[in-house]
């Protein structure tokens, strides 16, 4: 029971790191980016290639995955995404689905359709008992890393000048612009960091989530659930939604294995029917 909670928690943390970039993109520019998972996949594949072909250490691969996908995110944002901010949601959905299809086929072409395997370093393998709870070392590692990142994100958004500008821009982009905040520059940086985090999440999650070319499609729904349920105005909203989703998914697969992902889809639809703006939307709280 506690082990399930623990695994679910780790899974949820991972989902949060993967999805928080999407939450900010959606909250800041009202942009539905279905291609977010493609960045995560890019991070995962980069790690696989670096480790298996060039023998780079796993610990070095993680920051590399972050940096490279952040760079890719920044380039794509400046060249492609920037044209789509003032389009309607249908255009954005179509555009990002197009990107996903391209990414899936391209990865399939380059790396093949088989599942990729990452050989974790010995120090991260194995489990140990802790007060009767069986704890996987790698899952603990994920929780620590993601916990630190979450803390850092929270601090940046609440304590720094950049964070308050970001929050102002999320609340009302046009007023923020009127106050002299460079919203588009902020967005570029945030998009890059969000993509980078997705890449890092993809690298971390390759072991747990599995990595093959359909990754962006398979997990798109998970990221969207996090964002739709958690709302986009805070960091805590998506965080709590991720944890709920992670625990529910792991518990659902454990207790009702026949139903697979049925549990979380039902949970999501039920939540959205009751609270269409998400669990933690500020407009709903007012």
């Amino acid at each position, binding site marked *: 029971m506690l082990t399930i909670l623990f695994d679910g928690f780790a899974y949820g943390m991972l989902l949060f790191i993967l999805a928080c970039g999407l939450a900010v993109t959606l909250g800041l520019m009202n942009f539905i980016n279905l291609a977010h998972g493609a960045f995560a996949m890019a991070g995962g594949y980069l790690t696989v290639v670096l480790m298996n072909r060039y023998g780079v250490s796993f610990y070095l691969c993680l920051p590399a995955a972050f940096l490279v996908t952040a760079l890719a995110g920044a380039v794509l944002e400046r060249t492609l995404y920037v044209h789509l901010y*003032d389009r309607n*949601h249908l*255009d954005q*959905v*179509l555009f990002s689905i*197009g990107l996903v299809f391209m990414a899936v*086929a*391209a990865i399939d072409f380059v790396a093949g359709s088989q599942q990729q395997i990452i050989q974790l370093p010995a120090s991260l393998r194995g489990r140990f008992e802790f007060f009767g709870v069986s704890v996987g070392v790698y899952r603990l590692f994920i929780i620590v890393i993601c916990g630190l990142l979450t803390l850092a994100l929270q601090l940046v958004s609440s304590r720094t000048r950049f964070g308050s500008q970001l929050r102002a821009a999320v609340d009302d982009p046009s007023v923020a612009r009127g106050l002299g905040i460079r919203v588009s520059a902020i967005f570029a940086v945030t998009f890059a960091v969000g993509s980078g985090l997705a890449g890092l999440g993809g690298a971390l999650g390759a072991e747990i989530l599995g990595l093959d070319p359909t990754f962006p499609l398979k997990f798109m729904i998970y990221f969207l659930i996090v964002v739709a349920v958690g709302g986009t105005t805070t960091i805590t909203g998506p965080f709590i939604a991720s944890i709920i989703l992670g625990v529910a998914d792991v518990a659902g697969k454990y207790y009702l294995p026949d139903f697979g992902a049925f549990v979380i889809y039902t949970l999501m639809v039920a939540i*959205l029917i009751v609270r269409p703006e998400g669990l933690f939307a500020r407009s709903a709280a007012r």
Partner: protein
Amino acid sequence: MSGEAKPSTLEAARASLMRSAALKPFEYLVWLPLPLLIFLFPSKAFLLNEIAILALFAVSLDLILGFAGIVSLGHAAFFGAGAYTAGILAANGFGAPLLGLAAGGAAAALLGFATSFFILRGSDLTRLMITLGLQLILLELANRFSGLTGGTDGLYGMTVDPIAGLFSFDLTGQTAWFYSLTVLFAAFLFARRLVHSPFGRSLKAVKGNRRRAAFLGIDTNRRLVAIYTVSAGLAGLAGVLLAQTTQFVSLDVLDFHRSAEVLLVLVIGGTGYLYGGIFGAVIFKLMQDWLSGMTPQYWQFWIGLLLVAIVLVGRERMTGGLGRLAAFLPGRPARRAAKAPAAGGEDAP
């Protein structure tokens, strides 16, 4: 005096609506030779049939997307519901095609009605998630109840009787093509009549601005529920056609890529004038046929590239060419295209 003028105004309005709903002579010229295509391209019978089915599916999506402004990522749920209903009926001895058609359409419409209440509230994102989520739930259910649906193996053992006891489905695919084309044509006429009725006009008002439409006394929620139900039913018919003409149903009918594909079809053809779905289906299927002939495994890449290109160039500009071509069809896509950008964020209440 005004009491006398009023009925005549009503008459005029009704006549005007009927005129725009009726097929133009030119359109008969396009539709009538279509059945003969099978004799021209006998080797492409399968492809022709698929085009007709996809066109019907796209027309059904156009009803909610182009005329009511509902963005759905889960329209395949209804396609799949229709396909599985007809498939299960046929596998259990009820192989009459028309019975399957009626049952599949009704089942999908019922599902559409039941789920339509969930899409009335919330933002575009909420709607996307709910439609997608419902489709995924159906997929999981179909996978779970494999005793009934065949699960991942697909539903085998369907025996589809001859249509009305007369025309059996043969290997040349002729019957299938005539059958699918007839259903498509009937559904198209129905949809055409529907969007040019007072109901259809009020729906356009709802799409334009939901709040103002409500101020005019239009019961917006009821309109949306009604059109969603109809659209689901038509999508169900498309699913039935696929199940009956291929005599096979698999989980593929409920897959996400099917919902994405039909959106793409509609985007290629243009939304809001019904012919968009048909043009789009023709272009999409021919392109898929050609691309997958060249690069069997990676044709998705080109589809993705096309999507990105269409959006970046601008849907209005892209379909503008088709729109000008079809400018003399009712619905006047050229005019619609001109004002489409303004109707961008229509339903953010």
